[in-house]
């Protein structure tokens, strides 16, 4: 059985609703987290993201002016100086399946529909910590691999083509970002 040392994780939560921020903070502190930063809109969250370099971002979707979807898109900029790979958990009252697809295409790592539960949040955090997915970069997408499973029965067109061409190592952007603060 695996347990998470929450006191070694740094969280950024973004929600315009103060009551939901309080709920999230309470849950994360109860799990054992000590570093929990809060933003009430996407623009502030983006600033805090660059400044505090959180390990995990938990964001609402629906917020005025700069919403959680735009926040995810801004974080997932492959050329960004900030870490573009941090896990993003979208916590939202949107409860339609098509929203999951939209969030996934914006680079969101995990989707958690409200009402929030301690168990649901813990499982999403455990998943991003224990089972990170590789990132995919195409002309139109940069984010966690959207294919969680391989389907042997898939018969549609294959969108990813071409054999392996090259493998190269790059220094960690996260280490660079962390060393610059």
């Amino acid at each position, binding site marked *: 059985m695996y*347990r998470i040392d929450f006191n070694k994780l740094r969280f950024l939560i973004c929600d315009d609703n103060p009551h939901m921020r309080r709920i999230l903070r309470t849950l994360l502190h109860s799990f054992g987290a000590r570093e929990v930063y809060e933003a009430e809109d996407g623009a502030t969250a983006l600033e805090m993201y660059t400044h505090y370099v959180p390990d995990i971002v938990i964001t609402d979707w629906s917020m*005025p002016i700069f919403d959680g979807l735009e926040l995810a898109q801004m974080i997932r900029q492959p050329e960004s100086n900030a870490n573009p790979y941090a896990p993003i958990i979208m916590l939202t009252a949107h409860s339609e399946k098509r929203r999951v697809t939209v969030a996934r295409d914006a680079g969101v790592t995990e989707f958690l529909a409200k009402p929030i539960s301690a168990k649901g949040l813990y499982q999403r955090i455990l998943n991003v910590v224990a089972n990170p997915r590789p990132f995919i*970069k195409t002309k139109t997408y940069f984010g966690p691999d959207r294919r969680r499973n391989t389907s042997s029965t898939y018969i549609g067109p294959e969108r990813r083509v071409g054999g392996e*061409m090259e493998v190269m190592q790059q220094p960690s952007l996260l280490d660079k970002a962390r060393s610059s603060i």
Partner: protein
Amino acid sequence: MAKEKPGAIEVKTFATHHVITQPNRLRKVLRRIPPDIDHDDPVARAEQALADLSGEFKQWMTIEADRLSAAHAVVLRHGFSHETREELFRAAHDIKGDAATFGFPSAGAAAESLCRIIEHAPDLDQVPPELITHHINAIQAIVRERTKLDTAVMAGALSRQLRGIADEFLLKVNRDRPEHLEAILAPSIAPAE
């Protein structure tokens, strides 16, 4: 595949895409504990912390319901514009997401029904005003009367009835808009209460 160096990102380049694998930096926060000596339950601890917070939920819910009523009052005074629609939607959407956590699941269900009207009505000015007003009054009543006995059943019946009327309206006005019809008829992915 090249051997992974500490702190290095591996990029595999294909014709149409790159696959980028980062070393799992967060793995160091995972501890493996034999089940027989694991007496810690962080989820139970968090649920208890939420229960300790629950004394404040009624007041929070009242604030949320009043915000919705205030947004509706602005709509009644000035009509629907982008701003007034957005504020009404966000207030209802917050209740949809929060109310079950705060112990008011029927208020959440009524708020969800209102969100669906705002999202899927082709023209909000053509929505019967009393349909919106009844949703807001129902949410206020559910929040106000919760402490009384026998109101939970009535609140559930009220929110179900509102949802039925709202869905009937939405199916009728969206009969020529298949993408909205599909969204209206799709099952919710929200966790069950």
